[in-house]
C-alpha cells in the first residue's frame, strides 16, 4: 500500500533522506541455514536495516541470553559478524528498550520453537492453488491446452502479485497472465481484472464489436466475452466495474470507428500491443480526470501511482503469443528426444540486465541524461523494471503530477511517496507499458509453458524450473515398471534401484498441482536441489514482517499442452 512511509519493496526505494537504503537482497545468497550458527541469529542477519534496527536489538538480546548458558564464547563472534557497531551500544542497554525486548521475544520464539508439520506446510503451500482442466468432448480434447495449474505464495502482506486466466468466448484461444505489482497491489489488481478484456476486444472482428455495441445501446444481454478461471481468492473490484466498463466501451467504439471496412485478419501481435498500451493510457486518463465518487477517485489514483508488470500468453491452437512488460518471464518446457528437458525463453526481461533495453532508454532521452536515466541498475536510480503499467510518477510531467496530487484527496497528499518527484526528471515519459511480443509455433515436443513473476526466477535457474516441472508432469508415466525377466539381479541391486526411484517420486506425490510443486522447490530447495522440510518450514513460518526479506511474492502458472492435438495440427498442414 502506498501509505507505508518507508516502502519495503526492494524494486522501488524512494524513501528520501538517510532512510533511503536499497539493498537488493538476493534470497538465494543468504547463509540462511548454514549449520555453523544457531538458527535465530541467522534469521536476523538480513534484518539489519535502519528501519528495523530497534527491533533487532530486542531480539538479539533475547538470543544472547538464551545461548549464554550453553556456549558463552560463541556469541561475540556472531555479533561482530552481523551487527553493525552502533547497535552494540543499544545492545548493552536492553532496559531502555524493554518493550522492544518483549516484542522481540515473541519474534524470536516463532522460528525457534515451532516447526511446521508437513501437513501445515502443505496447507500453506496449497492455500492459493488452482487447477483447470480443459473439458473434453466425447472423450476427446480438441484444445491444444490440456489445462493449467496456478498458485501463488505471498511474501508481501497483502500480496502484490496477481494472476488471471480466461478463455476467449468470441474468438478462439485462451489467455493466461501473471502480474507483479509494486508500491502496492492496486495497479496489479486493476490490470489483472481489465487487461484480458482489452485484449479480447482487440481481437474481436468488426461485426462482433458492432453486435456488442448495439446490445449495450439497446440494453440487451451482452455476449459474454471471457470465461474466467479464478481461484476463490482472486477477486474483482465491484465498485470500479462500471468505470472500467465505460473505459472499455470507449475503446471498442473507437475500434469500430477506425474500421476501414476491409475485414482484414486481425494480427494477434498488434492486438496485444494495442491492448496493453490502451489500458495503460486509460489508467493514466482515469487518474487525471478523477471521479466524483471519492472512493473511486482515490482508487484510480492509487492504481495510477502504483505499478505492475505483466506477462501474458495467448494460446490459440499451435499459435502461442507471449506479451511481456517488465521482468516476469515466460518459459517453454521442451522435451528432447532423449527425454531430457530444456528451457526456451519466450520473453525478455525489461530491466538493467537487458542490453537492448538500456540502449532503448538511452535513445529515447537526450544524451545528457545518459548517465542518470539508469543508475544502480534502476530506472532513474529507483525502479527495477524498465517497463510497467501505472507508475505515472515516471510518465507524467512534473506539472501534471503536482496538479493531480494537489487536487487529489488528502490521503494522497499526506503520502510522502506520491509527492516525491524522481531525481533527474527532465524528459518524461521514462516508462512505457508497451509489451514485447514473442511468437512461437507450438511443436509436439513443447510440453508446457511456465509463466511466473520474478519471485520464482530469482530463486531458481530456468533450467531447473523446466526440469522440475517436466519431471513432475511426466515423471509418473515416464518411469517404466521394472521387470527382472532373464537378467541376473541381486536383491541388493534391486533395492538400490528401487530406493532411487522412490526418492524421485516422493516429492512429486505430495502435490497435485505443478505450480505448488515448483513453489515447494523454490522455497524449500537445499544446496543439493532437494526439498528440505526444515528449510521449507522455516521459510513459511517467517512472520509477515520478515517474509519479504527472504523472498518475493511468487506467482506461477503452468500451462500444459496437448501434444496429440499439436501433432495433429502439424500433420494437417503437411
Amino acid at each position: 500500500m502506498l501509505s507505508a512511509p518507508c516502502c519495503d519493496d526492494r524494486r522501488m526505494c524512494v524513501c528520501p533522506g538517510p532512510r533511503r537504503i536499497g539493498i537488493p537482497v538476493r534470497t538465494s545468497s543468504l547463509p540462511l541455514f548454514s549449520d555453523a550458527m544457531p538458527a535465530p541469529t541467522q534469521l536476523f542477519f538480513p534484518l539489519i536495516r535502519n528501519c528495523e534496527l530497534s527491533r533487532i536489538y530486542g531480539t538479539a538480546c533475547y538470543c544472547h541470553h538464551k545461548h549464554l548458558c550453553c556456549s558463552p564464547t560463541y556469541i561475540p563472534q556472531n555479533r561482530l559478524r552481523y551487527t553493525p557497531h552502533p547497535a552494540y551500544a543499544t545492545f548493552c542497554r536492553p532496559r531502555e528498550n524493554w518493550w522492544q525486548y518483549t516484542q522481540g521475544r515473541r519474534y524470536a520464539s516463532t522460528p525457534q520453537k515451532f516447526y511446521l508439520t508437513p501437513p501445515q506446510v502443505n496447507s500453506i503451500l496449497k492455500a492459493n492453488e488452482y487447477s483447470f482442466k480443459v473439458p473434453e468432448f466425447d472423450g476427446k480434447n480438441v484444445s491444444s491446452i490440456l489445462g493449467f495449474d496456478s498458485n501463488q505464495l505471498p511474501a508481501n502482506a497483502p500480496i502484490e502479485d496477481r494472476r488471471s486466466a480466461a478463455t476467449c468466448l468470441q474468438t478462439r484461444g485462451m489467455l493466461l497472465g501473471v502480474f507483479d505489482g509494486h508500491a502496492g497491489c492496486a495497479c496489479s489488481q486493476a490490470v489483472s481484472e481489465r487487461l484480458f478484456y482489452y485484449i479480447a476486444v482487440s481481437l474481436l472482428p468488426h461485426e462482433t464489436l458492432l453486435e456488442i455495441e448495439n446490445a449495450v445501446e439497446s440494453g440487451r444481454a451482452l455476449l459474454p466475452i471471457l470465461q474466467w478461471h479464478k481461484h476463490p481468492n482472486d477477486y474483482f473490484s465491484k465498485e470500479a466495474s462500471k468505470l472500467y466498463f465505460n473505459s472499455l466501451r470507449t475503446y471498442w467504439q473507437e475500434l469500430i470507428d477506425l474500421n476501414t471496412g476491409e475485414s482484414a485478419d486481425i494480427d494477434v501481435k498488434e492486438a496485444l500491443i494495442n491492448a496493453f498500451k490502451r489500458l495503460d493510457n486509460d489508467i493514466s486518463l482515469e487518474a487525471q480526470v478523477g471521479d466524483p465518487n471519492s472512493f473511486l477517485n482515490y482508487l484510480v489514483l492509487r492504481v495510477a501511482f502504483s505499478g505492475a508488470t505483466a506477462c501474458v500468453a495467448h494460446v490459440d491452437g499451435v499459435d502461442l503469443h507471449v506479451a511481456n512488460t517488465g521482468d516476469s518471464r515466460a518459459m517453454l518446457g521442451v522435451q528432447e528426444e532423449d527425454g531430457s528437458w530444456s528451457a526456451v525463453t519466450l520473453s525478455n526481461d525489461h530491466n538493467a540486465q537487458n542490453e537492448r533495453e538500456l540502449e532503448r532508454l538511452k535513445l529515447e532521452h537526450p544524451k545528457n541524461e545518459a548517465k542518470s536515466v539508469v543508475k544502480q541498475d534502476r530506472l532513474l536510480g529507483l525502479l527495477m523494471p524498465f517497463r510497467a503499467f501505472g507508475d505515472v510518477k515516471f510518465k507524467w510531467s512534473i506539472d501534471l503530477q503536482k496538479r493531480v496530487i494537489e487536487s487529489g484527496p488528502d490521503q494522497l497528499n499526506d503520502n510522502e511517496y506520491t509527492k516525491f518527484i524522481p531525481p533527474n526528471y527532465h524528459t518524461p515519459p521514462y516508462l512505457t507499458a508497451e509489451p514485447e511480443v514473442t511468437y512461437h509455433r507450438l511443436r509436439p515436443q513443447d510440453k508446457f509453458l511456465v509463466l511466473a513473476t520474478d519471485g520464482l526466477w530469482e530463486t531458481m535457474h530456468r533450467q531447473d524450473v523446466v526440469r522440475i516441472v517436466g519431471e513432475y508432469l511426466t515423471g509418473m508415466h515416464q518411469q517404466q515398471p521394472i521387470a527382472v525377466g532373464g537378467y541376473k539381479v541381486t536383491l541388493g541391486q534391486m533395492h538400490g534401484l528401487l530406493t532411487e526411484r522412490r526418492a524421485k517420486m516422493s516429492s512429486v506425490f505430495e502435490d497435485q498441482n505443478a505450480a505448488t510443486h515448483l513453489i515447494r522447490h523454490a522455497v524449500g530447495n537445499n544446496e543439493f536441489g532437494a526439498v528440505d522440510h526444515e528449510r521449507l518450514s522455516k521459510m513459511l513460518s517467517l512472520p509477515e514482517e520478515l517474509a519479504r526479506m527472504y523472498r518475493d511474492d511468487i506467482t506461477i502458472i503452468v500451462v500444459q499442452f496437448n501434444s496429440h492435438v499439436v501433432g495433429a495440427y502439424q500433420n494437417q498442414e503437411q
Partner: protein
Amino acid sequence: MPVFCQLCWSAIVDADGRIYIRNWQGGILSGGFEKNPKPIFTEGKNQLEIQNLREDWDHFEPLLSSLLRRMPVLETLEILKLVNCPETFTPDMKCIMGESPVVQGYFVLAGMNSAGLSLGGGAGKFLAEWMVYGYPTENVWELDLQRFGALQSSRTFLRHRVMEVMPLMYDLKVPRWDFQTGRQLRTSPLYDRLDAQGARWMEKHGFERPKYFVPPNKDLLALEQSKTFYKPDWFDIVESEVKCCKEAVCVIDMSSFTKFEITSTGDQALESLQYLFSNDLDVPVGHIVHTGMLNECGGYENDCSIARLNKRSFFMISPTDQQVHCWAWLNKYMPKDSSLLLEDVTWKYTALNLIGPRAVDVLSELSYAPMTPDHFPTLFCKEMSVGYANGIRVMSMTHTGEPGFMLYIPIEYALHVYNEVMSVGQKYGIRNAGYYALRSLRIEKFFAFWGQDLNTLTTPLECGGESRVKLEKGIDFIGRNALLQQKQNGVYKRLAMFILDDHDTDLDLWPWWGEPIYRNGKYAGKTTSSAYSYTLDRHVCLGYVHNFSEDNGEEQVVTADFINRGEYEIDIAGHRFQAKAKLYPVTSFFTHKRRKDDVELSDFHGK
C-alpha cells in the same frame, strides 16, 4: 542359507516390517502386507487376468527394504521371481462361510484374507458339519456369511474398506477399534444433530451409532494415540454419561436395532411365533416379551424383544447385525402363507432410549399422560403422542435394567421428538449418551447381549434366561426338546458375572473380552464381554464357567453350587486378578424374589 536350513519349517513374521519369510524349496520365500494395497477387481478384471498380473517392483520396494533390514545377508542373493498375485479380503478381516440367506442349500466359503492355507482345515471341517448337520460344532457367527448384507457389497465400499483392512493384517489390533473407511452409510435422521454435539461414532452393520459425546471443552487423543489396552481416554466422559443415566435422564439414539413387524389376518402370526420363540407370546395386547429364537439344540439364533401391538400383529426388536440372519431364519421357518406378512421396518423408525429415573417426568410432560409404573408398568408398549407427533411407540424398557423408555418414532417425527425431549428434559438434566454408557449399565446389571455373550451354542438355561422360556406353553417350539433334556440333565456351562477385586483401573491392563477364567486355579472358560461398572467402581466381566473333569478334561454338569463355591481369577495378559462370581446382578442379589429363583435353580440342578 545355513540359517534357513535350521528353520526349515518355521516362518518368520516381522510385523513392524510387514513381512513374512519362509523356506521354499531350499530358497527363501518372502512376502508381506503393504500399507498401500491396490484393490483390483473393480476394474473389471476377469479370473484369467488375475493370474497374469505383472510384477510391480516399485510396489514391493517397502517390503524389500524391510526384508533386507531384517536379513542384510540377502543383498547378494539373486532374484528368482517376483510373484504378484491378488488375495481376497473381507470388510472385517474375517472369512465368510455358511449358507446363503437367499438361496437355501447354497454354501459359501471365501474371502480368506490370505490366511486360506492356515485356516483351510478348520474352515473345511465347520462347513462340512454345517452342510451335513445344519450347524457347525463351534460358534462361527463371526464368520457367518449372514453377518453381511447387500449393503456391504457396494463396489466402492469394498474398494475402500479392503484398502484399510489389508494393512491391518500386521498392525496392532486394539480393542474397540472402529474401521475408518466405508462409514456414514446408514445413519439415523439425528446423525447431524448428534455429531454437532460431539458424538463419536462406531459402526455396526453399516449403521453409525454414537459411542459417547465429547463435551465441548474436552479434547480427546488423536486416533493413533488413542490405541490402548489400558484405561482409554473416554473413561471420564462415559462416567459422566453413566452417572446421568443413574441420577437424571439420558437419551441414546438406538435406531440401528433391527425391527420387524409380523402381521396376519388371523392367528397365523401368533401361531408361527409361538413355534419360533421360546417364551409365551400369547400375552395381552401391549405387553412386551423378552424371548430367544432358538435352534433345535436350544441355542440362541437371536435374542429379541417382541411387543404385541394387537391381536394379530407383533413388533420385534433384535440386535443390529441380525437384519440378514433373522430375516433368513424367519423366512425359512415361517409357513408360506400369503395371509402372514413379515416386514422389515428397521428404516421406518428412529429409536430413542430414554434412560434414568427422570425419564418418567420428561415423557409425561411431553405426552400429558401419567407415566408412573402404576399407569405404565415395565415391559409395556403403547402408541401415544409425544410432543406434536402422534403414533410414537413407547415401550417401558431400556435394554439396561435401568428405569426408562424406548421410543420408536416414525422417522419423519424423529427430529421433532428429539428436540422436544431435549428441551423439556433440560430442567431434568438431560444429556446425550452413547453405547459405551449403555454397555457399562447393561453389563453391571448382568444383561447378556446376543452376538457377544449369547450365540447359537448357548441355551437360555446356561445364561440365566430360564424366565424367558415357557416350556409348558403348550406348543412344541423349536429347541424345546433340547431344553427339556438340559433341564433334566443339568447344564455344562453357566454364564456368570465376575467382579474384579484387586484390579487397578488406572494402571492395570483392562479386560476387554476373551480373558481366561480360572476356578480354584484351573482353567474354566473365557470371558465374553466386560465393562467398567461406575456404580461398583470395579470391572465387571461376563463369561462362561465350565466344569472340566480333572481326569480326562470332559465337560461335567455345572450347578449354581459349583459356581458359588469356587475361587475365581481372571487372567489379563498373563496377570491374574481375583474375581467374585455372581449368578445374578449385584444390586438385586439379596432381594427376596431373586433368592427364590436361586433356590429353584439349585433345586433343579440337584435333581
